């Protein structure tokens, strides 16, 4: 009656064995390392880089304790934090700005463990230190920006096909154009439909005017916002790469939010600046014709001539610029600081993509002798960086931006342009920063709570239930083993509340064993034989254990569904802990009991502590 078939013992041993393997990486500790990654995430790194890194480090007498080459990154282990910093400088200098060089900590666990996916538990930011940002993406602005782009395209296309129109303007996400004749409107509509077949149209006739309203369909709006989020994610990825962070997390959350987690980052000010900068480059023509003193005077008073806007350059000179945008920063494929060979001034050299090159070529050809303005829009402030005269047609898509104050500024602007612009502005709506010392303290606190809680339970259980207490404690240890192994295997993020959940799970999991032990005592009290008591004890306790675990599970799932941040970390461990405790407290502990008692024909007494019996029961 109290015997397990072989496969059950085998299953217990197998799960314990597997858990032991998956737990091991947590005990190897970490070493200081440098991680080298390609600038664009997703690119591969060449193995030749590995040799360069190795020889450079040898040259500087920096001992590495391991070089790991993966197609996506190179990791160099070093002996001390001091070496790590030195190595970073050496590698950065030798590789140039084509790669991201970041400080990291990597596990010392042997390769075979890493290869089978046995990794140490993934520590959350509150345990390893770092910053967490939740960013709100302003999709309305993205929509307006795209509408502006459509308006530009519509104007260009209508002009190209010589369809007469006037008074084309946008109001939020509706574009409105007036035509003189019905025929013009019909032609115009066909042309516009070619730009985006999903436009909805509304025609109106007011006082001899043919009015066409172009409404952006919900479908298009959805794809615009999706694209905006995607582009913001990509831009953030590139910017984070510029920061040099080893294992960043950049993810969409909900409809219009992005989570950025930067482990190990301490300079929050710099991180915020780089992430939050919404610099946008625009090229527009200077309106030379309307730039007379009178117009400028009026523009300063808030009434710029029709179709122009007033901006100031770096020397506070007012400049009248056409509203029409020729190019935006999105067309830039590369940007870098350099020095103009003739003037010795700091400049930013940019490279445009194919479409951008063509537009730029066309515009420069048609406007020789006129001025083109480069505008930098940052935090809603627009500044004319430079407005040079076009001397000749510029092909090939290589453009130099002059007017930089110094090399630092050229570097900064190049970085911003290279890392891309944001499709929609973002705002940090939640920040959680934890310093590195705090992270270590939190780990100690969490682990100490667990250990001392565990020790107390062990003492309590053994005193009260004797051998059955020992069995329960073994079950509980196995539970802890399973839980940690599971957390390591699925790489769930472990946070401080998660550590608290481990401790709490131990405290709660013992309930199952207490129920079983009490039931067995009950059965003995009722005069059953020891064997029958064990059998009935487990049997009867099972239903109660299931009920109580399911109700606890409901709470755990609710925490997981509605909880965010710290609560989610708690919930994951809590839910997993319930599952492992069911397995270990019922299945594993029964296995031990069966192994110890199952084969014995005659047992006089179970070692389950003193049982008080009412005499006349």
């Amino acid at each position, binding site marked *: 009656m109290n015997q397990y078939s072989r496969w059950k013992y085998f299953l217990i041993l197998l799960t314990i064995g597997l858990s032991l393997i998956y737990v091991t990486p947590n005990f190897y500790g970490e070493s200081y390392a440098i991680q080298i990654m390609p600038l664009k995430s997703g690119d591969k790194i060449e193995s030749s880089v590995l040799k360069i890194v190795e020889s450079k480090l040898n040259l500087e007498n920096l001992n590495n304790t391991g070089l790991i080459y993966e197609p996506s990154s190179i990791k160099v282990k070093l002996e001390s934090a001091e070496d790590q910093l030195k190595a970073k400088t050496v590698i950065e200098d030798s590789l140039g700005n084509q790669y991201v060089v970041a400080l990291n900590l990597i596990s010392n666990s042997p390769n075979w463990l890493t290869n089978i996916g046995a990794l140490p538990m993934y520590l959350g930011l509150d345990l390893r230190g770092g910053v967490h940002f939740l960013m709100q993406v302003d999709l309305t602005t993205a929509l307006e920006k795209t509408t502006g782009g459509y308006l530009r395209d519509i104007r260009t296309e209508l002009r190209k096909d010589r369809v007469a129109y006037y008074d084309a303007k946008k109001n939020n996400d509706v574009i409105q154009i007036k035509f003189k004749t019905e025929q013009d409107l019909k032609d115009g509509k066909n042309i516009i439909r070619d730009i985006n077949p999903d436009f909805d149209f509304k025609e109106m006739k007011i006082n001899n005017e043919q009015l066409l309203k172009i409404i952006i369909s919900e479908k298009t709006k959805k794809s615009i916002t999706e694209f905006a989020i995607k582009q913001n994610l990509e831009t953030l990825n590139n910017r984070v790469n510029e920061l040099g962070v080893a294992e960043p997390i950049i993810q969409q959350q909900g409809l219009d939010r992005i989570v950025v987690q930067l482990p190990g980052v301490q300079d929050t000010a710099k991180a915020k600046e780089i992430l939050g900068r919404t610099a946008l480059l625009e090229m527009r023509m200077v309106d030379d014709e309307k730039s007379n003193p009178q117009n400028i005077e009026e523009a300063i008073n808030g009434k710029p001539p029709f179709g122009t806007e007033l901006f100031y350059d770096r020397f506070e000179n007012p400049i009248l610029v056409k509203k029409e945008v020729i190019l935006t920063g999105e067309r830039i494929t590369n940007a870098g600081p350099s020095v103009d060979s003739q003037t010795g001034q700091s400049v930013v050299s940019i490279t445009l993509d194919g479409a951008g090159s063509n537009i730029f070529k066309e515009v420069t050809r048609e406007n020789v002798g006129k001025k083109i303005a480069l505008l930098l829009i940052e935090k809603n402030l627009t500044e004319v960086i430079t407005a040079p005269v076009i001397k000749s047609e510029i092909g090939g898509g290589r453009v130099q931006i002059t007017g930089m104050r110094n090399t630092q500024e050229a570097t900064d602007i190049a970085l911003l342009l290279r890392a891309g612009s944001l499709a929609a502005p973002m705002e940090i709506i939640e920040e959680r*920063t934890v310093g590195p010392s*705090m992270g270590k303290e939190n780990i100690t606190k969490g682990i100490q*709570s667990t250990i001392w809680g565990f020790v107390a*339970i062990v003492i309590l259980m053994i005193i009260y239930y004797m051998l059955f207490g020992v069995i329960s404690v073994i079950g509980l240890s196995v539970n802890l083993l399973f839980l940690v192994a599971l957390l390591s295997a699925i790489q769930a993020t472990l946070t401080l509340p998660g550590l608290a959940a481990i*401790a709490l799970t131990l405290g709660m999991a013992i309930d199952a064993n207490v129920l079983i032990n009490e039931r067995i005592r009950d059965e003995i009290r009722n005069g059953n034989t020891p064997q029958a008591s064990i059998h009935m004890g487990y049997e009867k306790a099972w239903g109660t254990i299931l009920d109580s675990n399911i*109700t606890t599970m409901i709470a755990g799932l609710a925490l997981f*569904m509605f909880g965010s941040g710290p609560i989610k970390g708690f919930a994951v461990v809590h839910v997993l802990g319930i599952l492992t405790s069911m397995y270990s407290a019922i299945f594993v502990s029964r296995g031990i009991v069966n192994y110890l008692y199952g084969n014995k024909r005659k047992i006089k007494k179970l070692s389950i502590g003193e049982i008080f019996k009412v005499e006349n029961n």
Partner: protein
Amino acid sequence: MEFFRVKKDIPFMSYRKISVIISFAIFFFSVLFLFTRGLNLGVDFTGGTIMEVSYPQVANIESIRSTLDEIDIKDSQVQNFGTSKDALIRLPLTDNLSIADLSEKVASALRVKDSSVQIKRVESVGSQVGDELYEDGALAILFVCLGIMVYLWLRFEWRFAVAAIVANLHDVIIILGFFAYFQWEFNLTVLAAVLAVLGYSVNESVVVFDRVRENFRSPKMRRAKVTEVVNNAITRTMSRTIMTHLSTQTVVIAMLIFGGEILHNFALALTIGILFGIYSSIMVGCPMAIWLGTNQNNLAVTQTDQNKDNIDS
């Protein structure tokens, strides 16, 4: 060793009038404190910023306050946190500074004043996030209550489900009452504790109800009064009750001692939850179930299943 050497069942249910009065009184005061004092909600729910800063020497709270005054930050609170070297700064949301700029401005001002300062932790929550977390928290509590009720209704019957949830909410209100009276900070971690208590303390009711049902079905107790059946169930599960809660509470005490400031209120909420959880499942849940009319007949339908089970085994 055996904690309970009882010869007769303890007549818990004969004290049920007193316990109901006590419960109503505690409940009344809890609600009163919740309304008069309110919860001291943390930045997770209200929005705002907290910064934990640490100095190599004793933190000069006055100096931190004057630094904040100098950079024109109003309505801030500064206090020691954990040790005398650590200080906690609370800043409300402001209209003219984004949360990202606010913490940076304070950090740089503190560094200018004393370069040895270390920013250990910053938590900034914008108002919209705070509102959402508040709503999500309420939704979570609702979801847990409904989920548990539906489950108990299916497994037992509606009287047990209602009784268990009343006992549970009683605990939650009391935890909130304590937090309101002592003005302990109520943040996301404490909310996690409250929800964990909801799931945990219902276990107590489940275990007792399980015994009640078993007693109803057992031939020995067929003629017993409902209160006798309940008293017997409670007495026979008493040993388990004590052992389980003792174990959980030891872990929670370890958390109170070693867990530091962040886990402190979490552990406090659990402690109150555990202590009142025992009381309420016995002295609130059971009377409630009796009052709702639980008796042998309610469980008559499932009796045949039980007989079948017995034959199978």
